[in-house]
């Protein structure tokens, strides 16, 4: 008798398909690292994944055609740009259907936070540049880093920060620190010039 066993990757040793689970089991031993692995198995694990039928049947006379491929029948509207698209040119994103071009734009250019794949934390970058840790390691780094922090901080003032809402506190601290460093450098330069003039 052949049991329906789902082979999954072990979370401890990361070996692919080393932990075998059956519908009635919640724990097993990894065949690679011999560690006990527990799992919450959900119905999706035992249901064959069915992607949309591709390619779709050619459109009949009077049928709406796909905006990107006239040889395919349109099945839905892109919720972003509103064009008629076929199954092969659309993607499900939560409860929304978007065409593949819109999906790429939304993910890459980050116009919609629901589609964004990553964000640079400019406030943290500014804070790191202006922090004393760098200045302690590379004292001359401040000559470039402090003005760069001010420029970067002003340029990215309105940029989106983390997806988790937070204030501009870090950016303000970074700007204050960088300004103090620049001020210190200016005072230093003033005293050097004074000393040179006196001598």
């Amino acid at each position, binding site marked *: 008798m052949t049991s329906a066993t789902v082979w999954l990757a072990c979370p401890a040793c990361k070996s692919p398909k*080393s932990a075998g689970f059956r519908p009635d089991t919640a724990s097993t031993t990894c065949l690679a690292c011999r560690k006990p692995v527990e799992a919450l198995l959900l119905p999706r694990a035992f249901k064959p994944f069915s992607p949309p039928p591709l390619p779709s049947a050619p459109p009949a006379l009077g049928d709406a055609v796909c905006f990107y491929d006239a040889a395919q029948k349109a099945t839905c509207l892109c919720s972003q740009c509103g064009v008629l698209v076929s199954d092969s040119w659309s993607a499900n994103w939560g409860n929304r259907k978007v065409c593949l071009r819109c999906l790429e734009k939304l993910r890459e250019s980050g116009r919609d936070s629901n589609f964004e794949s*990553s964000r640079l934390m400019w406030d943290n970058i500014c804070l790191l540049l202006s922090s004393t840790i760098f200045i302690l390691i590379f004292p001359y780094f401040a000559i470039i880093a402090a003005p760069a922090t001010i420029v970067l901080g002003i340029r990215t003032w309105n940029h989106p920060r*983390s997806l*988790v809402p937070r204030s501009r506190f870090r950016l303000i601290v970074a700007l204050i620190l960088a300004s103090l460093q620049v001020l210190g450098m200016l005072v230093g330069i003033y005293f050097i010039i004074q000393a040179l003039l006196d001598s």
Partner: protein
Amino acid sequence: MSKAPEGYQPLLNRGTRGSLWLADDHLLVIESTRFLLCLKETYRRLDFANIQAVLHAKSQRGTWLIALFSTFLISSLAILALAGFDSTSARFFSGAMALPSLVALVAHFIKGQTCSLTIQTTVRPWQLTMVTRRSHVLQILAALEPRCREAQQDISINSPTPDLSATSIPLPPLVPVPDNSPPPMTGTHPAAIPAWLCLLAFATMMGGEMIWNSIAATLIMLGLATLSFVLLMIAFTRGGGTLATGGRGVFFCALSTLGISMLGGYAAAMTSMMQASIRGDSSELSSEVSMLRALSAFPEECPDAVSIAAMAIIALTGLSAAAGLLAAMHRNRLVRTSRESSTPLSP
């Protein structure tokens, strides 16, 4: 407490490590790229309808943390013992080292067992790096299970065909698996037995070096220590874990005793050098000899307490080596017996 993104409920927030947020139809995983601070956030959205399984297992992180904090704690106590309890600076230094280690150790035990968690979707498994404790795992399971079951309520498991078509790795063959039968047992790595023998020889040499006063003995001892460490690490890494060396306990015990004996030897060498310099005999050659012949200096140069500590270290190393050797041999014998008695199962 940080606010939640619009339309999300907080599930787990580990600061710069990352966070998990629940939406109506998906789980948002925020991962961080860090260098002191979080410099980049990566967002992954896992649909409840596409989650196949949530897997978790005990991780080695906890053992390493205990080893690290214990080493600091033991080292600080050893420094105090070596320098003498009357020394104010030694007491201050040991206290400054021991207190944070003790607090970290207690905090580690309070936080509970360390775990790693993976969410298997129809596309691929996702390791959630911000989940490190069993308490986090339980919290995530409690939140995910009802939501996933609700999203997948139209799926019945009457036809139990595993869905692995979306993964890029070739499918393993389905094999007959008897009920509750354990997977096959593997023996130790070929490097394990030589490693334990080397460690046993190292312990013997350490003991012998206290009588045989020679630089050659010290060099042989250092060579044996290095060889046993390298062989143990080969068995550990190539064999796929601590069991490839004979057992978890003996492996970590051997590593700690090796570390302590080397550190102890170094500390003793430093002590003898300092004593030699106080006596005025601080020529370069004598310092070098003292450094090399760390343990041979014990009976003559160091206080009785240090000699007793050295004896204890030697005994511990010998015991752990003997235990490791016996465990490795016992494991190999068990594997041989199981192979002879039954046909092994393989994935």
